[in-house]
């Protein structure tokens, strides 16, 4: 295919598909619109019936319902998009016809059916339960019968499924049936369930349109029962299980449903004392039947003292509980005795007793259970209504609670348990066994050098990882911190205010500066050779700079300690009076606070670069990505707030959030590619880097240096402007920006920028994801690229929510834009900053995809989430993997706490 043809085909296809999609969308909009207004109509009808038609708020809501993009156009848009995609592929390849007959289409179909099946079954269960509990107040006999049937069906089904009772030796159980259903769920079955579910659902909604129409209600219930039966029949038919097998499978649950349902029916008609007697007798009968079919391996051996003691004990407990709750003591005793009997007969004793004993044990248990149902009086109408009302919350919650507990809570608890175990092999026995090992897994995590490695922090040999105190970012960061501290001192002299916590900050900083000076001194003494850590470090390791740093750190350290001691002596003299101004006040409020924070950020980055290990790496990720994304997101939101084409800019920055982490990692992999020297560089970053190098080596490099000097001059002007306005942030910021650019200009002029090596043709490339120690920063860049959009969107909404009167009032009073931002907007959105930071912390802690795709934890870039995956699923170290998951869990617990507190504050 030629290029022209490709492009042409592509464009024409896209256009045609677009037109097609548009047409479909228009039709869909008409269709959905009609549907929607009838929906709105019905809502309005209900409202008018309840006498709410006229209020203003509702009229507004009606308008929303009718016209809102959300209700009508959304569906139409969705259909239009699907049509466009479909049309695109159809026209592009003409493959649709083959697609319809392909395995992919059958996959589509089976997925669709699975969804419909799941939704239908849930809907039938949910609606059925609702109908069932509606009967509590309307038709108690029906309610009690159906409840009994359900209890019997489920109990017998569970017993049968667990092979605790058996009808014919070696036959299939409910479990087998379910297994077959999920694996070979076939068309017929699905059609059955779907049709039945749809019919029932429609029926239910229809009958509710006229609430007092009793016959229709019964028809609905009948349809529900019939539907369930039909679905079951469909199950066996579709599975092509012979009818007799099907009957044997369904036999036990059905028998249970009939027996217990009959019991429920009887109990709903009788009053005491016949009620209790009938309950106990019928229960005993059902128990006896169960006992007769009890599986051989679980028939209990009656050990009289054991089960008598258990029964008496639990009965007493039951009485005690009901006494405290103020409920009927007899029902408490019966419930307790039932549980005690079951424990005594089936748990504490051995198995293999004779059939007669099994029947006896089950008979007593059944009698107790039946007596429990038969105890108490028939409920009055009020009580029955109460049953109905109280059931509603649990019914609505049940599906969510089921999935939450099965899919999240119980697995979490089990992971806790697994983290204290280890799987081992035993001599001469097949398979693996789980052994309890206590805290051994946690010990393995925390004692492993690959989790914590602080060996490099004083390493000033020429290793790949710089020592903390002599690395370039640390020196730079500490310098900025110290300069800012000096400015804070000057500001404190003016204002007399002292930053909170400065009593710890000042001496701490002093000690740190002295330590840094000490290490600089040792470095200068011990090494004459240059370290090979890239350009920036190179500059620091120039002896001249080292001496300058040594002097600076020494002076600053001594000065800060002197200030701290003077303050302490003063506090001692003045009796710790908090109101008195200290001789040395450090006021961090103001722009130099930003310089201080940035310096601190750099110094902490240096800290993480020299401390290695999985846990340190995760902390580093959290630290860097959270801070950078938040700050960048806030900055961009503030910038975009006033810009033209604001929405375009915002959606472009926001876009990476829609791309998967795997996709983002691939996108950046291509940015980071470094091809062997001499071959054309196709990674954008290395390409540009080498281009800079070419320029530095060319004859025109002085021109570039001059231009950079111009920029430096500009920043110095900002600094000067800040000085005239007593704005320390502008002074510090200007100088902070000017210095590195000055350095760049110098390197450019010197011809040493852009990976230019000592000899001609020898160029230094960036191997972003592998070059220690900063390789992880490049991986973090990917996540920052994604998450900044998230922070920006949230901040943007928060900034727009700041009342415009505040901003206008400030502007009238002569506040500058930056004043408005720092003094008005930022204090207003502090809660939002909290939300963004906590969300980001959790996201970053879970980061897995990026590390897995980029390095898979190699080059010392392992993080907890990936380590957990590797241990649990690649190395099959279930215990260790669980322990790592729990470490991850514990590290988000503070965030959970913050979330809950926030919820409680909001009401």
């Amino acid at each position, binding site marked *: 295919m030629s*290029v022209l043809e490709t492009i042409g085909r592509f464009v024409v296809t896209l256009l045609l598909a677009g037109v097609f999609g548009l047409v479909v969308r228009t039709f869909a909009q008409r269709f959905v619109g009609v549907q929607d207004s009838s929906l709105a109509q019905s809502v309005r009808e209900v409202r008018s019936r309840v006498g709410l038609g006229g209020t203003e708020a509702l009229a507004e809501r009606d308008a929303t319902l009718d016209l809102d993009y959300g209700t009508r156009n*959304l569906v139409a848009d969705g259909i239009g998009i699907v049509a466009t995609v479909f049309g695109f592929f159809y026209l592009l390849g003409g493959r649709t016809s083959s697609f319809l007959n392909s395995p992919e289409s059958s996959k589509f179909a089976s997925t669709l059916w699975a969804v419909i099946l799941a939704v239908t079954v849930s809907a039938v269960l949910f609606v059925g339960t609702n109908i069932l509990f509606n009967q509590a107040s309307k038709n108690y006999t029906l309610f009690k019968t159906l409840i009994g049937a359900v209890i019997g069906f489920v109990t017998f089904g569970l017993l049968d499924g667990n092979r605790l009772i058996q009808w014919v030796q070696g036959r299939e159980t409910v479990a087998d049936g379910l297994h077959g259903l999920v694996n070979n769920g076939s068309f017929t079955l699905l059609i059955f369930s779907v049709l039945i579910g749809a019919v029932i659902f429609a029926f239910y909604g229809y009958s509710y349109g006229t*609430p007092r129409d009793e016959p229709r209600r019964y028809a609905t219930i009948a349809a529900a029962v019939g539907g369930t039966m039909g679905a079951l029949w469909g199950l066996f038919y579709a599975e092509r299980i012979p009818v007799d097998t099907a009957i044997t499978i369904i036999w036990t649950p059905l028998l249970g449903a009939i027996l217990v349902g009959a019991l429920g029916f009887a109990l709903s008609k009788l009053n005491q004392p016949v009620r209790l007697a009938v309950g106990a007798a019928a229960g005993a009968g059902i128990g006896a039947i169960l006992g007769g079919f009890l599986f051989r391996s679980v028939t209990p051996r009656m050990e009289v003292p054991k089960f008598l003691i258990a029964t008496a004990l639990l009965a007493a407990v039951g009485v005690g509980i009901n006494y405290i709750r103020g409920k009927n003591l007899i029902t408490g005793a019966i419930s307790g005795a039932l549980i005690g009997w079951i424990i005594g007969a089936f748990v504490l004793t051995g198995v293999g007793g004779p059939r007669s004993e099994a029947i006896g044990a089950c008979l007593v248990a059944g009698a107790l259970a039946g007596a429990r149902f038969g105890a108490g009086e028939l409920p009055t109408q009020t009580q029955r209504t109460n049953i109905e009302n109280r059931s*509603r*919350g649990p019914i609505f919650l049940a*599906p969510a609670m089921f999935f939450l507990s099965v899919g999240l809570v119980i697995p979490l608890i089990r992971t806790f348990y697994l983290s204290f175990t280890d799987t081992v092999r035993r001599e001469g026995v097949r398979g693996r066994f789980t052994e309890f090992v206590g805290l051994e897994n946690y010990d393995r995590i925390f004692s492993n050098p690959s989790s914590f490695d602080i060996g490099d922090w004083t390493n000033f040999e020429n290793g790949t990882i710089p020592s903390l105190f002599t690395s370039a970012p640390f020196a730079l960061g500490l310098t900025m911190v110290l300069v800012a501290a000096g400015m804070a001192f000057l500001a404190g002299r003016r204002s007399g205010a002292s930053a909170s916590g400065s009593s710890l900050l000042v001496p701490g900083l002093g000690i740190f500066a002295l330590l840094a000076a000490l290490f600089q001194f040792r470095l200068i003494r011990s090494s004459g050779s240059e370290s090979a850590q890239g350009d920036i470090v190179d500059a620091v390791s120039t002896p001249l700079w080292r001496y300058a740093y040594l002097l600076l750190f020494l002076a600053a350290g001594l000065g800060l300690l002197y200030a701290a001691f003077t303050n302490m002596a003063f506090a001692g003299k003045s009796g710790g009076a908090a109101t008195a101004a200290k001789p040395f006040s450090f006021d961090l409020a103001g722009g130099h606070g930003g310089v201080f924070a940035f310096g601190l950020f750099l110094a902490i980055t240096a800290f993480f670069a020299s401390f290695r290990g999985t846990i340190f790496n995760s902390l580093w990720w959290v630290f860097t990505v959270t801070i950078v994304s938040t700050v960048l997101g806030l900055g961009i939101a503030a910038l975009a707030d006033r810009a033209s084409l604001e929405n375009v800019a915002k959606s472009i920055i926001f876009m990476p959030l829609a791309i998967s982490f795997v996709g983002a990692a691939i996108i950046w992999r291509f940015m980071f590619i470094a091809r062997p020297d001499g071959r054309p560089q*196709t990674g954008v970053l290395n390409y540009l880097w080498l281009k800079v190098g070419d320029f530095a080596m060319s004859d025109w490099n002085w021109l570039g240096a001059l231009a950079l000097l111009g920029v430096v001059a500009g920043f110095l002007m900002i600094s000067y402007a800040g000085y005239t306005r007593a704005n320390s942030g502008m002074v510090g910021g200007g100088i902070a920006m000017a210095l590195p650019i000055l350095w760049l200009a110098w390197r450019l002029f010197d011809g040493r920028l852009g990976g230019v090596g000592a000899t001609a043709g020898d160029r230094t490339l960036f191997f972003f994801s592998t070059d220690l120690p900063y390789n992880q920063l490049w991986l973090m860049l990917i996540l920052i690229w994604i998450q900044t959009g998230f922070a920006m969107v949230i901040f943007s909404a928060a900034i727009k929510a700041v009342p415009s009167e505040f901003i206008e009032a400030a502007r009238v009073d002569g506040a500058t834009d930056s004043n408005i931002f720092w003094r008005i907007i930022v204090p207003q959105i502090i809660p939002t900053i909290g939300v963004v930071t906590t969300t980001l912390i959790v996201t970053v802690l879970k980061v897995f*995809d990026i590390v897995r795709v980029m390095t898979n934890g190699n080059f010392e870039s392992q993080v907890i989430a990936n380590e957990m995956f590797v241990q649990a699923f690649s190395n099959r170290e279930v215990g260790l993997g669980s322990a790592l998951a729990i470490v991850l869990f514990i590290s988000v617990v503070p965030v959970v706490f913050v979330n809950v507190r926030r919820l409680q504050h909001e009401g």
Partner: protein
Amino acid sequence: MATIDVARDQERMQALTDGSTRTGLVSTVYKFLSGIPSWILWIIVILWTTPTLSLFVNSFRGREDQRSSVFWRTTPDQLTMDNYSTVWNSQAAGGLKEGFVNSFAIAIPATIIPIAIAAFAAYAFAWIDFKGRELMFIGLVSLLAIPNQVALLPLLQTYAGGAHQTIPFTDKTITLIPDLGLQGTSNAVWLSHIGFALPFAVFLLHNYMKSLPKDIFESARIDGADHFTIFWRLVLPLSIPVLAAFAIFQFLWTWNDYLIATTMLGAGGGGSTPLTVRIAALVGEFGRNEHLLTAGAFVMSAVPLMVFFALQKYFVKGLLAGSVKG
């Protein structure tokens, strides 16, 4: 003296708010500098787009072209759809057609089913009085930030062999969930997604439903409508915007998921792996299939990007309403 001070103050104020009153070099520089913010914004926008653009352009170039020059040196005669047709059709290069279908097979159920379940629960938390409601809701909110990793191992064990519990002090084991043969199927993936999605879904929908006017509910109750009627006829139609917001959110989430899919299906294989897993496997053989990754990444991102750009408004709505999702 006082008058002069006032005059000077006014002058200074004007100078601060409007740089144009100044004259000379400082003013020129000031004007220049005050334009910088919008430049910075657009520079950031360009920086943000470059990586995606680079990959997008390269995806239409052959292997040798990709390896010989940087993306903006692309010439029209290099453009080709070969990468796309290879990744789409060839099994050796990932078999993305199958992966595409599998991604849908996971994302659609994982989007639709939680909505239904969560809507019920959200309504219960918002408008039904029952014992322990507050406590349960706090429990739900505390689940929001829980990392998925903590539940993966037991879930995988359940899919592989069911859930069985040995009763303490006896040798008897009972089956709580039978082995349903879910291991290695897409059903296992979307079933897992349901549990992980629910806390956020319920939280998001609850916040919205709680904000509906109370008088509707009270009058409807007085008129004899029960909770199910109110839910079905009143709340659900009114909640469609937030349902859409959650649906988009959840669709993107499940489509882009890698962790759960690779855990439940295995990194290497099986026919049911979604796009993310297939493409991540392609990365493993980076050298050989490097040029195909470009097209693969775009096949993978096409659907989320389309959903994103078409329905951004709802996505943002969901993001804003539920920004405590873990």
